[in-house]
């Protein structure tokens, strides 16, 4: 009963706070001259939707009352059942109240200080006018990402195989590969891009110095991410049980044949989720190329931002990055789930 009353009070408070926020939002829209019948209807609808929180609280109270009545009537079992469902309803109310409070807090943040936050980050006219400029520059990010990803996949495998080179003859190869991985995993990508992007042209080396800025960016990102992906490959290869190697070698397959036909095909299946994670990281790293002056989406948006003294164009870039990442993140989830299912089948 106490829980029921508490949930009713909390729900009431949150709904009241939501209404206050909505009224403020309406005022803000009026000062902007954006208020109209459409926005009023929308706000009213949101206000009504906020009221929905009262429903579980009210049902909780009624169920709790029912429980009391049952207890008074001596029906212990019925009282217990009702108490349990009242409690569940109470906690449901709290959960939704917390979510709703957070949502309206965010709205408060956006309209705080006379709409300062919204104006700085979400100035719609600027977003609209700069959108295609940004989108065109975003193509540079995608271009850099696609080319480096292909190179990273190849280069990472080469480095991983070098780290697994067998026997005493393979020792120097292993050492140099380990050195490379150590260096480029430790080196921040932004410094690497800076050094290669500005450094190589300065060296005046024939042929290489005439590469485009984007090629240097691709080279730098490949070197950095190649070190990570090499480790992912190596983990995948080493996760395959030694008995598979024994079986392959006992059939007369050489070291390289064993890797190629038996170990790598199995290892790669294991590492698809971590590889996709790395793809996402690489995708985000493409925004770092602005340090060498490549006009990618981020750099373009910075130009727009400084021209208009407003960050809304940067918000566009942020949105674009998030937008292309989400499908991949879901894909990773799906593949991990599928892998788990398959492994469970394997062990049964």
């Amino acid at each position, binding site marked *: 009963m106490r829980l029921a009353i508490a949930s009713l009070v909390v729900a009431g408070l949150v709904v009241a706070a939501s209404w206050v926020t909505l009224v403020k939002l309406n005022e803000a829209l009026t000062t902007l001259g954006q208020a109209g019948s459409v926005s009023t209807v929308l706000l009213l609808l949101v206000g009504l939707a906020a009221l929905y929180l009262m429903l579980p609280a009210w049902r909780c109270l009624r169920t709790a009352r029912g429980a009391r009545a049952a207890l008074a009537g001596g029906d212990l079992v019925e009282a217990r059942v009702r108490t349990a469902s009242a409690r569940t309803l109470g906690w449901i109310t709290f959960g939704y109240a917390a979510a709703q409070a957070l949502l309206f807090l965010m709205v408060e943040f956006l309209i705080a200080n006379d709409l300062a936050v919204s104006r700085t980050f979400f100035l719609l006219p600027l977003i609209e006018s700069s959108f295609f400029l940004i989108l065109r520059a975003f193509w540079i990010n995608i271009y850099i990402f696609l080319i480096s990803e292909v190179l990273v996949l190849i280069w990472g495998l080469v480095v991983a195989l070098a780290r697994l080179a067998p026997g005493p003859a393979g020792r120097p190869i292993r050492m140099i590969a380990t050195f490379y991985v150590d260096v480029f995993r430790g080196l921040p990508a932004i410094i690497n891009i800076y050094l290669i992007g500005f450094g190589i042209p300065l060296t005046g080396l024939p042929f290489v110095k005439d590469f485009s800025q984007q090629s240097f960016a691709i080279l730098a990102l490949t070197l950095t991410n190649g070190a990570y992906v090499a480790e992912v490959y190596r983990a995948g290869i080493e996760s395959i049980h030694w*008995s598979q190697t*024994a*079986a392959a070698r006992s*059939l*007369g397959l*050489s070291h390289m044949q064993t890797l190629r036909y038996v170990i790598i095909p*199995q290892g790669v299946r294991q590492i698809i989720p971590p590889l996709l994670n790395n793809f996402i990281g690489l995708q985000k790293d493409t925004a770092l190329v602005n340090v060498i002056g490549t006009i990618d989406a981020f750099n373009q948006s910075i130009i727009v931002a400084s021209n208009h003294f407003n960050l809304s164009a940067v918000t566009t870039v942020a949105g674009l990055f998030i937008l292309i990442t989400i499908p991949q993140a879901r894909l990773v989830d799906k593949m991990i789930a599928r892998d788990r299912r398959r492994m469970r089948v394997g062990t049964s």
Partner: protein
Amino acid sequence: MALIEVRDIHKHFGAHMVFNNLALEVEEHQVVCLIGPSGCGKSTLLRCINGLDDIDGGEICISGDRVTGPGVDVNALRREVGIVFQSYNLFPHMTVLENVMLAPTRVLRQDRAEAEAGAMALLTRIGLEHKAKEYPDRLSGGQQQRVAIVRALAMGPRVMLLDEITSALDPELVAEVLNIVRDLAAEGMTLLLATHEMGFAREVASKICFLCDGVVLEEGPPAEIFGAPRQERTRAFLRRIIEAGRL
């Protein structure tokens, strides 16, 4: 000259002595069974003969050629010597047919049609031709082990090493695997097997070798080893086997 000659080999893992002057001979068309307490080196011996493990001293010869030490083409050796493992070790990402065809196409460089015909003939022989397109995890343990035997046979080895090939199987699946071994023995294939199936060893073996303390402590025809073992250690071992109801 014996097909396999193991001459006074030494091997140790750290301080633990695995082989201490162990010697063994396997004649062509012989079926030799290695028995002995667990950890006595039966599996290690088979792996050394196949070059999957190194020895620290002595030598192993196959039809007169030394196959241990430097300068040996282990890949060539392994074409002559097939091995089947306790845990089958089929390649899980390949179908049954691909498992059998891999080595003939990649090592012997047979063309696909030839290799496939050979593989299908072998699979038909063990009654698994209808499973050719299946992946190993859809097969029972006994079926997987039969495929593993056939995979080794596809290379046309002169001798087969069988490493406790029925130890991981449910009891009712053991017979289907042993029947294949029985057929191989009847055809005259040279076999060297490490086994805990004493009844089977007694039936098919031309020679039983009892491994203990890094040496072949006692060897002889099955009737002699099982009927009248000379060594006390052999008698103790067999007594425990009988107590466990396995002989």
